[in-house]
C-alpha cells in the first residue's frame, strides 16, 4: 500500500511538471501582456516593467528561473495586474473554493448515491424511472441556467438567502446545489449501473436464498462492490467541479480561485494564471490519489495487487 501511494505521488509530480511546462509555454504564446491595458503607457515604461518582472529575457531562461524559484522558494511571483504576491492571492481565495467544492461534492453524494441504490434495487419501478429522469435533468440543465433560476426563484423570495455574496454559511447553500447537481446526476447513473451488476451475481442470490434480510444483503454484501464505479468517477468529478466552479463563482460572486483564473485569462496576467493552473493540478493529483485509495479499500482484489 505504501509503495503504491509513493508510486502514485511520483506520478503526480510528473503530471504537475508536464502541466507546468505545457501551461507555461501556452501562456507565453498568448497575445498581449498584462501591461498593455486600458491606460496607454509609453514603450519605455512597458520595457521597464517587463524588466522588473523578469519578462525581458528569452522564454527558456524565464522558464528555468521561474521553475527554480517555484521549487526552491515555493514562490509563484507577483501578479502585475493585482500588484500582490500570487501565492497570497491563491491562499486567500482557496478556502471559499474548497468550501464550495466540498459542499458540492456532499450534495452530489447525498443525492446521487441513494438515488442510484434505490433505483437499482427497485429496477423498472416508477421510482427508477423518476430517478433516472431526474438524473437526465441534472446532466442536461446547465449550471448557468440553474444558478440564475435559483437566484430569482429562491434567493429573491426567501429572506435568509442572498442573491450573491459569501459572508455567512447560509450563502454556501445555493452555490453548492448549483455546482453539485450535475455530478449528482452522473453519480446516480453510475451507482445504479454498478449496483445492478453486483445484484445479478450468484453470491447475492445465495445470500437471499439462505434467508438474509433484504436490507442486510444490500448493506453488507452489495453496496461495497456496487459503489466501485462511483468512487472511480470521483477523480474526474473533481476536475469537473473545478471547471464548474468557474461558472458558479461568477454567478454567485464567490471570491474563489475560479474567478481569478478567468480574470487572469482576460488580463493576460501570466503569473496569476500559472499559479491557478498549478493549484488546480495539485488538487486533482491529491484527490485522484484519495479516490484510488478508497477504491482499493472497497475492492479486495485491487488491494492485493498493490
Amino acid at each position: 500500500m505504501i509503495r503504491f501511494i509513493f508510486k502514485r505521488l511520483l506520478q503526480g509530480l510528473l503530471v504537475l511538471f508536464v502541466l507546468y511546462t505545457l501551461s507555461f509555454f501556452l501562456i507565453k504564446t498568448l497575445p498581449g501582456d498584462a501591461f498593455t491595458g486600458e491606460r496607454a503607457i509609453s514603450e519605455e515604461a512597458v520595457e521597464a516593467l517587463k524588466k522588473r518582472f523578469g519578462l525581458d529575457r528569452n522564454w527558456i531562461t524565464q522558464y528555468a528561473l521561474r521553475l527554480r524559484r517555484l521549487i526552491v522558494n515555493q514562490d509563484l511571483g507577483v501578479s502585475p495586474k493585482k500588484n500582490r504576491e500570487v501565492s497570497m492571492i491563491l491562499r486567500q481565495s482557496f478556502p471559499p473554493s474548497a468550501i464550495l467544492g466540498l459542499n458540492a461534492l456532499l450534495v452530489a453524494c447525498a443525492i446521487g448515491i441513494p438515488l442510484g441504490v434505490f433505483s437499482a434495487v427497485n429496477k423498472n419501478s416508477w421510482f427508477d424511472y423518476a430517478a433516472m429522469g431526474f438524473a437526465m435533468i441534472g446532466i442536461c440543465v446547465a449550471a448557468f441556467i440553474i444558478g440564475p433560476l435559483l437566484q430569482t426563484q429562491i434567493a429573491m423570495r426567501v429572506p435568509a438567502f442572498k442573491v450573491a455574496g459569501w459572508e455567512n454559511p447560509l450563502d454556501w447553500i445555493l452555490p453548492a446545489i448549483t455546482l453539485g447537481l450535475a455530478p449528482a446526476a452522473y453519480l446516480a447513473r453510475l451507482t445504479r449501473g454498478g449496483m445492478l451488476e453486483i445484484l445479478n451475481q450468484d453470491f447475492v442470490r445465495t445470500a437471499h436464498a439462505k434467508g438474509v434480510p433484504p436490507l442486510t444483503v444490500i448493506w453488507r454484501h452489495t453496496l461495497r462492490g456496487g459503489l466501485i464505479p462511483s468512487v472511480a468517477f470521483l477523480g474526474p468529478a473533481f476536475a469537473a467541479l473545478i471547471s464548474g466552479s468557474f461558472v458558479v463563482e461568477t454567478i454567485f460572486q464567490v471570491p474563489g480561485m475560479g474567478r481569478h483564473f478567468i480574470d487572469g485569462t482576460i488580463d493576460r496576467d501570466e503569473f496569476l494564471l500559472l499559479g491557478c493552473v498549478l493549484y488546480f493540478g495539485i488538487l486533482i493529483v491529491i484527490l485522484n490519489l484519495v479516490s484510488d485509495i478508497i477504491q482499493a479499500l472497497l475492492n479486495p482484489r485491487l488491494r492485493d495487487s498493490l
Partner: protein
Amino acid sequence: MRLRQNKVAVASGLFLIVMFGLCFVAAWFTGDPNQQELTHKFAAPGSGHPLGTDQMGRDLFSRILFGGQISLLVGLVATSVAFVIGISYGAISGYVGGRTDAVMMRIVDTLYAIPFLVLVILLQEVLSSSAGEAAGWLVKKWSFPEETTFRFANILPLFIAIGALGWLTLARITRSQVLSLKQQEFAQAAVSLGLSPRRILFRHIIPNTLGPAIVYVTLTIPSFIMYEATLSFLGLGIKAPNSSWGVLIKDGANYMETQPMLLIFPGLFFTATLFALNFLGDGLRDALDPKAAKD
C-alpha cells in the same frame, strides 16, 4: 433495428431534425438577428416578434435560431476533430503496441489529470490570435469577404480547441478495441497475405472499431455543446457579432429579474437540444450494445 422500438430515441431524433431545420433553414426567413430597433426594447412575445425582443430591440427568435447554428456546429465540428484524432491515436497506439503504446497511453493519462476547461481556455486564446492574423491576411491578400472571414476566424479556434483536447476517452476505447481485433483471424490472415501494416490498420481494423466509437461520439456532442456554452457564458467563447445559445443565456441572465423570458427562451432551446442528443445517444448505445440494454 432495435433503435426504432425505442420511442424516446425516435422522438429525440425527430426533434433534432426539426431543430436543425429551424436553425439552418428557417433562420434565414426570420430576419437579421443583429437588426436593432431601439424603440422596441424588451417587447413582449407576439406581434411581429414571436418571442419578443432583447435589450437592444433585436428579435429574440431570430437570435436564438442563428445562435443555434453555432452551438450545433460546435457539436459537429469539434466532435469530428476529436473523432479523427481519437481514432487514429488509439488505433496506432493499440496496433503498434510495446513501448510506443506505453508512452502514448501515459500521455493520455497525463492529459486526463488536467482540468479540461483550463486547457481549452488557454488553447483557444492562443489559436484566436493566429486565426485573427490569418483572417486579416486572407482579406488583404486574397480579398476574402471581410465580415464573413473575421466571423469565421472568431468561431473556429473554439471548435478546434475543444476537439483537439476532447479525444482522450475515444482514444482509450479505440485502443482496447484494436488490441482484441488484431488477435482475430481476419487480421492475422491479412498479415500472412503480406499486406502493409498501414493498409491492415486503415482498411481492415479501423472500420471495425467505428461502431462503438460512433456511439460514444453521439454522447460527446452534447457535452461539447455544453463546453461552448460554458465558455461563452464566461465571456471567453463566442464573441459579437457572432452569438450562440451560451451568449444569449449570458445576456439573458443580466436581465433575469425584470425580463426572465430572455433567459428562459434560449435556455429552453439549449436544454431541449441537449435532452434530445442524450436520449438519442443512450438509445443508440442500448441498440448496439445488447449487454447494456439488458439492464
